[in-house]
């Protein structure tokens, strides 16, 4: 008997064996399980609304906002070039010529930035506060990232957009979103903190995403379901593809 034939038989046997594993198993009381499930769902629904802000996480939130701000600049400048989201052209910035974007052979000056509004050490970073009426954030993102905190993030002291911090071990992610308004994605990024300028790296557009990195932290921004959304890695390392998978899973 050849090894190949044995593997064919195994395919068939595996299916049958798995089916028997399900058929033969004794399951505990369904009614009790269903009662527990409905009870848990009800509790979770109400607890999300009552979620309280934890000041112990304020530092993490502040850091998160900073990353958002830095990342937002990247998106903002990227959009200033006038390319569509679906455009797959690479955009890069020279390290020396800060604030000048190169798009293929075109050089675009970000004239909207005002030097007087550049970030200084005295500038206040936007900070988040507890979102008492958060949107229905998914409790778990692909990769088993658990919802840690629902936030209302602010830009220039004004409520700007909803955010949620997710954790999985040492890795944390910030998911932010805002409904598309008349300002579109541009307005979204403006509110994220378009007044500060920082050096950007690895800005790339592809398949509807804008990917960027700031200080070696990666982020993605996209539009979906009438909303602008962004996902940023706050701590730890997350592969680009994993970020895309998470982004794709978010409605």
């Amino acid at each position, binding site marked *: 008997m050849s090894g190949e034939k044995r593997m064919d038989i195994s*395919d068939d046997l*595996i299916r049958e064996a798995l089916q028997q594993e399900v058929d033969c198993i004794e399951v505990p009381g369904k009614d009790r399980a269903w009662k527990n*499930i*409905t009870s848990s*769902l009800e509790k979770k629904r109400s607890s999300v609304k009552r979620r309280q802000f934890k000041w112990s996480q304020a530092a993490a939130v502040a850091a998160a906002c900073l990353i958002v701000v830095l990342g937002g600049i990247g998106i903002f400048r990227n959009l200033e070039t006038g390319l569509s989201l679906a455009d797959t052209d690479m955009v890069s910035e020279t390290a020396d010529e800060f604030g000048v974007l190169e798009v293929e052979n075109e050089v675009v000056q970000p004239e909207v930035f005002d030097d007087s509004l550049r970030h200084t050490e005295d500038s206040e970073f936007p900070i988040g506060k507890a979102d008492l009426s958060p949107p229905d954030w998914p409790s778990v993102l692909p990769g088993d990232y658990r919802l840690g905190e629902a936030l209302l993030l602010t830009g220039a002291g004004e409520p700007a957009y909803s955010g949620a911090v997710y954790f999985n071990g040492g890795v944390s992610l910030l998911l932010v979103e805002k409904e598309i308004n008349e300002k579109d994605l541009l307005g979204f990024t403006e509110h994220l903190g378009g007044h500060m300028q920082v050096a950007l790296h690895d800005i790339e557009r592809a398949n509807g995403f804008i990917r960027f990195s700031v200080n070696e932290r990666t982020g993605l921004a996209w539009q979906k379901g009438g909303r602008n959304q962004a996902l940023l890695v706050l701590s730890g390392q997350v592969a680009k593809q994993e970020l895309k998978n998470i982004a794709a899973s*978010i*409605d």
Partner: protein
Amino acid sequence: MEPEEIRQLVRKNDNDSHRALFEAYYKRTYAVAYNILRRRENAEDITQDAFVKAFQNLHQLQDGAKFGAWLAVIASNLARNYLKREKKIILTEELPEISTDSVSNDTEALALRGLEIERVRKAIRDLPPEQYQAVVLQYYHDLKVEEIAEMLNIRVGTVKSRLFRARQKLAAVLELDSDSACHTSKGGDL
């Protein structure tokens, strides 16, 4: 349950549809959790958690017909995480054996088939959780390798590798048992 019916239930996403999905998938989801955890109470808890998470995030499921596979992924991930967290050595509970009565009066071929299935079942229970997870998704839920990779957020190559190793183990057990079965049944040189 037909795929279109499942899609409709997922789309509906209300209490009644949740109940219908629960009725249809509870047993198989429990089986997945139990095969990883080997503890009835833990498997019951994990199964319930899996349903809660699934219902909370049902709107994220793009193809409702894949609800069963998606739920299996959630349950198996929860079970795997539980094992990692607890870092416990799992002592296997006795699993119900396949009754041989039904095959005793059948043909020899059927009886042998039954024995082979029993060996595969035992071997499946011994698979590492991540390999078991891939096997369930491919052979029970009939997902393609690419779909498994997408659901588990891992690379296609990793899925292939897990499946290959799992199949190797299952095939090896069969070969081993069939060799030993030959020795015992023939009784050797007497």
